[in-house]
């Protein structure tokens, strides 16, 4: 009996011109890989002095004191001598970043899921089209404008909601306050951040929901299900991983947001578990705040803070993009 012949090996031979072309294109594509590596390398290089001096304390400690700067203005010799007294650590800032970002996501996630479901399944055709293009535009509004809006328009509302929460739920530790000044608190800043994140998460969620197989939804209706039944049993399970990925993207954005938080949050170097109190922390806006009058040593510490922020957001974004790549069928 004759064995079946093995299929012929397909061999692609590129000409020299093609090889050059492919090499140029590959080099171009690798530039973005290298760029990420370069960013990490330079941040590590420039912050190594700080990490060597403070070690793990830089992340866990809660004190930021630059000896080179004189609180009364005008450097005196005593202060110059005390150069070694400077202490840099960003523990409260990391915790504060996470707290504000979580508040934002806590508000933004229901809004964007509900909004996406409305746009995809309830909105009339004309409104659907308008809302989809507004979503694109809203995601492009610079965060600086969100910050201005937050301070001038939103703060009174946020303060009233914070007062309400404090009145009714003040017995819970996180809603208690020391002074009844709710402006520039993590809660109000988190609300503005939520407004900033909503367009991003909504447009991801909407796109995921719009890819739900139509016949599955129709099957639900044919079996006598209501719209909510179809959404609960088909649309939401189907889009779960995509929506989680969108939420992670939003979380990454919320963690790295600088200017809006700079304007909306009162930075205080102390751990606090009261989200309505007018004191919070944020790594990104701390960098922007301290950068202007920083000494050389302080700049190294700020770069170390940037490195920490970079690593945190990179992890969040890598999780998000791995979910996205796993959930979309590869072409």
């Amino acid at each position: 009996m004759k064995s079946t012949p093995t299929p012929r090996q397909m061999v692609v031979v590129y000409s020299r011109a093609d090889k050059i072309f492919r090499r140029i294109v590959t080099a171009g594509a690798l530039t973005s890989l290298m760029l990420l590596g370069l960013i990490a390398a330079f941040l590590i290089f420039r912050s190594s002095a700080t990490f060597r001096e403070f070690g793990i304390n830089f992340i866990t400690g809660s004190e930021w004191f630059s000896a080179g700067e004189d609180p009364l203005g005008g450097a005196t010799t005593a202060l110059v001598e005390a150069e070694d007294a400077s202490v840099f650590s960003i523990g409260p800032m990391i915790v504060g970043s996470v707290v504000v970002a979580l508040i934002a996501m806590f508000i933004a996630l229901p809004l964007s899921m509900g909004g996406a479901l409305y746009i995809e399944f309830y909105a009339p055709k004309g409104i659907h089209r308008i809302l989809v293009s507004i979503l694109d535009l809203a995601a492009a509004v610079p965060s600086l404008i969100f910050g201005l809006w937050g301070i001038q328009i939103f703060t009174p509302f946020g303060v009233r909601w914070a007062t309400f929460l404090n009145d009714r739920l003040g017995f819970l530790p996180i809603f208690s306050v020391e002074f009844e000044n709710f402006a520039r608190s993590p809660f109000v800043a988190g609300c503005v951040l939520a407004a900033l994140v909503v367009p991003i998460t909504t447009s991801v969620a909407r796109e995921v929901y719009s890819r739900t197989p139509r016949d599955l939804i129709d099957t639900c209706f044919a079996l006598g299900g209501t719209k909510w039944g179809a959404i609960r049993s088909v649309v939401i399970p189907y889009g779960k991983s995509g929506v989680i990925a969108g939420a992670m993207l939003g979380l990454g954005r919320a963690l790295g947001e600088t200017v809006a938080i700079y304007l909306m949050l009162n930075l205080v170097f102390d751990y606090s578990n009261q989200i309505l109190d007018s004191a919070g922390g944020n790594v990104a806006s701390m960098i922007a705040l301290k950068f202007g009058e920083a000494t050389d040593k302080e700049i190294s510490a700020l770069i170390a803070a940037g490195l920490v922020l970079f690593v945190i957001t990179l992890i969040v974004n890598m999780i998000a993009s791995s979910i996205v790549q796993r959930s979309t069928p590869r072409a």
Partner: protein
Amino acid sequence: MNSVPATDQYLGIEPLRPWAVTRSTNLKNFSRSIVFGLVAFLVTIMTPLANIDGWAVAFLLINVAWVVGRTSRLGVKERRDAVLRLVFTSLAVLAFVPWLSIFLTVLLKGYRAIYPGYFFSDMRTSTPEDEFNIGGAGHAIIGSLIMVAIATVITLPLGILSGIYLTEVRGRMTFLVRFIVQSMAGVPSVVAGLFIFTTIVQPMGKYSGMAGGLALAVLMLPTVSRTAEEVLKLVPDDLRSAGYALGARQWRTAIMVVLPTVKSGLITAGILGVARVIGETAPLLLTSLNTNGFVWNPVGGTVASLPTYIFSMFMYGTEYSTSRAWTGSLVLLALVFGFFVLARRLSTTAVQNAKTDSRKARKLKKKS
């Protein structure tokens, strides 16, 4: 009423669409919302609920009560469905209210300081507290445009190359490149600023527009390469095959067939990238700072830009300077939206062109 053409075949029988919303239903819904709105207003006045957010809560509660009452004779399933429709609608409204509020605020607060000179003059001879007919943001607009141009010149070729790599060359690192590009989209803007500060600003010993442009380029690259990839994916494989069948090598097919097909789409990628970075403030605070006058030299020291102009005007804190900040925001928002509309117009024509091209090709194939 005249939408049905009276022809012989068509015996005047209109297809029934019992699910269609009739005009009277629309009218009923509309008038009911108005009545509910007024009731909610009365509730707001008489109870501790205050202001527009209190009104919204009252309005929602009244609507929920009405829906529950209306569906009381139906089953649990129907009632749940109706209530959830209301919940989703109100969540959607809530999601869009901030955007609407921002848009209106920028318009209403921003138009006050606008006069023709705002676009042509700088702040060298005027203070933030002057009347609105002196000084302007021309220097900031020019500075922003210069920096964005630098960023575009760098990122557009790189983005297109990585797009070609992902769609045409498809080398071993396709997965890695796509993954890294997606992760890079999340690099915090302040970190990009720090990176350029340590690599460019410190060695050069001065802040510059070049540094600002490079920082923007870091943030712009992911957007551009991702959009370029999406656009290149739209090119029908027929075109590539046709190129190869005519004896063209891969590089010729890529450069002379694939790229020209999506030319406007690639321009769109650049424009979207520009719209993404033109409002970035944090990296510019670390790389290009701000000045009061026109600066045309991108390596000659600090340069003003729209975001830093707005930021410094706002931090100045007086009534007039805040107004100037809002006007700057209006200009910035107008630029962003302008770029966006341009990108959308170009991209729709690009997709249509690609589609009609392949359709034409298929028709020709059938004919021959």
